[in-house]
């Protein structure tokens, strides 16, 4: 399509956006001296993403920028972006950032006859020269089109001209454009066909009363890129934070080091304990002892000289402390000694990507040796299906990458047997699965524990009865008659 591309035989130089997970999607950054169109519906985060591209250029990579604004005057943008921690006004004074104010003029204006956008191009080039810019953002093209609504043909020709001229000066250009719908034509007026080497789409989809933001690289001329939508979130003081979808790489090492589950009998069943960088799922109905296993897991780690962190989404800190002391474990003391951190939060307090980022940042700050999440089922209720799966993938691979031991719980729906929805997702993602079940034997309801799966290790296959008292969990004899732990109480056999 574009004759300038053909001479670019060598590897494209990359311009980092500074949004780490996004740079990963595009193999290191946006190609230098190319034009990228960022499309999105109103409110999808285009302006933030575009401004961030300039802000990171200035603060992290020593590349100055020019912001061409067609919508809001520079003063408004400076005020709006302050919330993300970007002081555009000070960069402007330091000659690291220049504005081209192309917001609509107050004058009466009429178009008569043919015209071009040399005026705009001259102003951009003037600004580029003034601050020695390497990055240029035009926000948004749709506004420019609406300004000259009657002459779309001229505008396409002129935009192509501007884009080529800026590229020839070695500038990396990012243009935003509005979309009417989340799924449909790429941008209003189909701008991308004329100017874009690359197309990135930001989405803000409403699904089951939840907003879900995603970023997708649709096209990247002459370069490989990851496909599909990746979740992201907008954080105050940071801007766009893409959530790394670790499915891109399965490179975490697998260690053979065993760590205790916190219960010596379960360690024996697992062939010597959990693996250090593995994720174990504990699944069971309410009241079967999941939180007890979590408590043991944390206490066992702390007793072995490790640091542990707990993310609780079902019970308050006070409740967790009381539970633990009921089983002879003193959480308050451990936390005071800096061995343990307990974070309790309502799942509804924030979106799933925000939860993930919070877990990641707290883990990187506290540097624990083991982490427990109680429970995944509580988190699942706030997220659409795909969002939850992405969350699980990201969480489990994050835990493995940090080489820490993870324990997650899931609540099964029915009291006897049955499987939880999270189980279906997580069973393939976790390395080990421990099931806790109510099991009826004659007139008595027992509790049973099974190690269902233990990746890379032998494990006990029997269903063990267990009891809970003030010193914790005690495993008893295996059940004689194998009850079907997967079937619900009233399930029919076929």
């Amino acid at each position, binding site marked *: 399509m574009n004759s300038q591309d053909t001479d670019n035989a060598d590897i494209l130089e990359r311009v980092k956006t500074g949004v780490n997970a996004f740079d990963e999607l595009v193999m290191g950054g946006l190609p230098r001296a190319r034009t990228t169109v960022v499309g999105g519906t109103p409110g999808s985060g285009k302006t933030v993403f575009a401004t961030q591209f300039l802000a990171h250029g200035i603060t992290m990579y020593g590349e100055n920028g020019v912001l061409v604004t067609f919508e809001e005057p520079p003063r408004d943008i400076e005020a709006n972006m302050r919330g993300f921690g970007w002081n555009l006004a000070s960069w402007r004074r330091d000659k690291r950032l220049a504005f081209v104010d192309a917001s609509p003029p107050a004058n*009466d204006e009429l178009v008569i006859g043919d015209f071009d956008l040399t005026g705009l191009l001259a102003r951009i080039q003037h600004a580029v020269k003034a601050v020695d810019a390497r990055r240029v953002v035009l926000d948004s093209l749709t506004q420019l089109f609406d300004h000259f609504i009657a002459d779309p043909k001229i505008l396409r020709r002129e935009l192509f001209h501007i884009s080529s001229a800026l590229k020839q000066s070695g500038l990396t250009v990012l243009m935003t454009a509005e979309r009417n719908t989340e799924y449909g034509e790429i941008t209003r007026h189909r701008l991308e066909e004329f100017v874009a080497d690359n197309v990135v789409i930001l989405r803000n989809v409403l699904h089951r009363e939840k907003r879900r933001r995603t970023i997708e690289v649709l096209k990247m001329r002459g370069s490989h890129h990851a496909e599909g939508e990746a979740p992201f979130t907008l954080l105050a003081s940071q801007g766009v934070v893409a959530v790394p979808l670790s499915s891109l790489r399965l490179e975490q090492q697998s260690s053979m080091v065993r760590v205790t589950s916190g219960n010596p009998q379960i360690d024996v069943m697992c062939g010597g304990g959990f693996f250090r960088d593995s994720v174990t799922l504990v699944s069971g109905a309410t009241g079967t002892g999941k939180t007890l296993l979590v408590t043991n897991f944390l206490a066992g780690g702390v007793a072995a000289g490790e640091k542990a962190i707990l993310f609780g989404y079902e019970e308050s800190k006070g409740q967790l402390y009381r539970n633990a002391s009921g089983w002879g474990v003193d959480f308050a003391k451990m936390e005071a000694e800096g061995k343990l951190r307990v974070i309790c939060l309502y799942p509804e307090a924030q979106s799933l990507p925000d939860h993930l980022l919070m877990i990641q940042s707290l883990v990187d700050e506290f540097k624990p040796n083991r982490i427990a999440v109680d429970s995944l089922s509580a988190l699942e209720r706030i997220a659409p299906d795909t969002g939850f799966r992405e969350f699980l993938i990201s969480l489990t691979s994050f835990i493995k990458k940090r080489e820490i031991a993870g324990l997650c719980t899931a609540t099964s729906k029915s009291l006897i047997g049955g499987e939880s929805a999270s189980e279906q997702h997580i069973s393939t993602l976790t390395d080990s699965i421990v099931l806790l079940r109510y099991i009826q034997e004659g007139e008595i309801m027992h509790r049973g524990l099974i190690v269902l799966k233990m990746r890379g290790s032998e494990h006990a296959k029997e269903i063990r009865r267990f009891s809970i008292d003030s010193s914790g969990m005690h495993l008893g004899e295996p059940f004689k008659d194998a009850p079907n732990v997967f079937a619900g109480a009233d399930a029919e056999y076929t």
Partner: protein
Amino acid sequence: MHLRKFMNAGAWKVEIVDVLARPELAEQAGILATPTLIYENIGGRPRRIVGDLSDTRRVLEFLGIEPDGDA
């Protein structure tokens, strides 16, 4: 080229600015498109016409100028 017609036809002063040579003036005036005719009439609101002014009748109409009859 169409402008020349108007330049000679009335009692007004025309200043021509080359945006490539004086981009800072284009910045001040907020020019996007070229050519842009900025018409400043004392007492009236400033008006702008973008384009090559090929339609004389519409230009005069927009600026509120009575045609001489020979246009």
